[in-house]
């Protein structure tokens, strides 16, 4: 029983990490309608940035969250403005190729600059764990959980109660109608892509104390993030959050009770079942909204 509770706790904490990454992906997909295959590489860029800030200026990764979030916002905005925007009216496949190309380019750029070695920030308190009623919780993961909740709540407030948030929601609902209402759609896209990337920036600052960075680190996280996004109904931020929790729990429980190498099989099987029986995702709004 103790093991079960420990696994559930681990699963929720793991899920919160997936949540922060997936919320960013959902924003980009839901608003700009672009599948961003370079999402994992954004994470890698953010992690290298956090590493460099720690190595050169002695900044704690959590303190580096602010500059890294700004940097990633800029990166996302630039990618949207100069890579995606010229292709917006082109076929969807072309946009996918563009992001896949960007992903490959970023990985190789990192290989060129940093080599294949792994880098990590100096050990900090975030790596330690605390005992709560006999259960072990990793401090860095608790921080992630709190941040994931704060991120979703913050984005909710932003979307519901600011003019920009309303414009973003209008654009996501109907691009042409928003355009007719005087919303500068292109600008909204740039902001939305930037926000999605900024979420990954936050994730990379939080992940950095727990995982060393390598050029291919993005691939470790991003496949799961895609599953989470689809599970969550593709456009729903809240869906992405709960989807991430489900995947975190499945990951943790199946790794223990079935086999560690089969946990991917379990959640991809779940993924296929959901695609077959509820193609709009668990939290989707129904047919036609995907």
């Amino acid at each position, binding site marked *: 029983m103790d093991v079960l509770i*420990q696994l559930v706790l681990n699963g929720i904490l793991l899920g919160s*990490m997936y949540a922060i990454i997936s919320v960013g992906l959902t924003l980009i997909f839901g608003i700009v309608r672009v599948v961003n295959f370079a999402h994992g590489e954004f994470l890698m860029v953010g992690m290298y940035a956090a590493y460099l800030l720690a190595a050169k200026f002695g900044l704690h990764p959590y303190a580096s969250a602010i500059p890294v979030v700004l940097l990633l916002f800029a990166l996302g905005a630039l990618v949207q403005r100069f890579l995606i925007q010229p292709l917006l009216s082109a076929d969807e496949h072309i946009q996918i190729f563009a992001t896949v190309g960007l992903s490959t380019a970023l990985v190789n750029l990192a290989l060129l600059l940093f080599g294949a070695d792994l880098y990590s920030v100096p050990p900090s308190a975030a790596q330690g764990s605390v005992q709560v009623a006999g259960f072990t919780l*990793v401090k860095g993961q608790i921080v992630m959980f709190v941040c994931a909740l704060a991120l979703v709540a913050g984005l909710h407030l932003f979307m519901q109660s600011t003019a920009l948030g309303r414009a973003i929601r209008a654009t996501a609902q109907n691009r042409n109608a928003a355009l007719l209402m005087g919303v500068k759609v292109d600008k909204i896209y740039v902001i939305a892509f930037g926000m999605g990337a900024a979420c990954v920036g936050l994730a990379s600052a939080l992940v950095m104390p727990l995982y060393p960075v390598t050029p291919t680190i993005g691939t470790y996280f991003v496949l*799961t993030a895609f599953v989470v996004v689809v599970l969550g109904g593709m456009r729903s931020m809240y869906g992405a959050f709960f989807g991430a929790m489900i995947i975190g729990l499945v990951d943790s429980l199946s*790794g223990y009770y079935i086999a*560690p190498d089969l946990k991917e099989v379990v959640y991809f099987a779940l993924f296929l079942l959901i695609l077959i029986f509820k193609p709009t995702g668990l939290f989707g709004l129904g047919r036609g909204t995907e």
Partner: protein
Amino acid sequence: MKSFARAAFAAALLVAASPFAGPAAAQGTIKFGALYPFSGGLALLGDESFRGFELAVEERNAAGGIDGKKIEFIKGDAVDPNQAVGEARRLTSVDKVSAIFGTYSSSLSLAATQVTELAGIPYFELGAVSDPITERGFKYVYRTNATARDFANRMVDSVIEAIAPALGIKPADLKVGIIHEDSLYGQTVSGYQKTRAKEMGLNVVETLPYSAKSVDLTPVILRLKSAGVDVVLQTSYQNDTVLFFRQMKDQGYKPKAVMGAGGGYSTRDTMMAVGAENMEGALDVDFTQYNTNPKAAPGITEFVAKYKAKYGIDPRSGHSLANYMGAKVFFDAIAAAKSTDADKVRAAVMKVDIPVGETATGWGAKFSEQGQNTRAKPFLMQWQGGNLVTVFPETAAVAKMKVGVGSN
């Protein structure tokens, strides 16, 4: 039809050209190919391996070369198996080398040796560990270094010969857990471990494969913890090694010993990322590293001095040493053959008989019919105070083995 004619012409040229390989070598030089990954993802350790070969060549040339002939080598850059084949073809047919030395990576070696075997040219493998390289019945492929099976056997034997006595527990009473990443590398080594452990009567209570790309190994750790595993044998790359050590600490799992098979366990990067105090006591089976007793590995100190003089830094891994040792053994064999004829070289290699503890890696050299060195045994090392030191066997040890892992 045209292309067939061209192929036939090329083949005719090849056949016609081969007799000239002999006379070319007689003019005061002897030509070898050095086939390593010099660029791409494997380049770092590929280059490190090549440095060992290069140093062996320089040493030999300074001492008068082979049979009074200077050694010349031509580099081949094998980035992937396709290119390994291409470069092996170029070296054997265009450059007409008398033998090829290589390769660091098993997949490259498996591909390149098929070319040299067909061309009837000796291939000396100095660093790749995959067993099948010398299990395909090839006549002109030889290997000095230890194989994956040697690694696995040494790990299992260390549990019985080193860990159990140090703990004062009977080997059969220890609960052993085997964990490994689930690609070919992990599957191969852990497969040999299971076989050996069964032979030796060890009690393996858990065998857990996991994906090297996993971001969470706590299920693995909790399984080991609930099974009460005393000794963990891990076959892993760098990222998963780091993750395992970090999460083991987080989850408060304290096995009596953790042992890795080279890979992620040997690099300084791993130790730095895990932290010296958490890596303390971690055991590692690998090629001979530099904190080894020179009495058991004569020439190791001189090698490090030569390396530093030439490249300006300390050796980056044990790969250079293994390649240096292997190249020297084969240079001697070729000198003894007094010819670069493949069959005469084979006869000379079969006659090589160097006892254990008389080369710079501490290995001996005696080749099986398949060309595999039967006297290459990897050593057991341990992280102590941020350094990887040899602890077993005793003749090669520079420090006493400690019990326990990490600061907890």
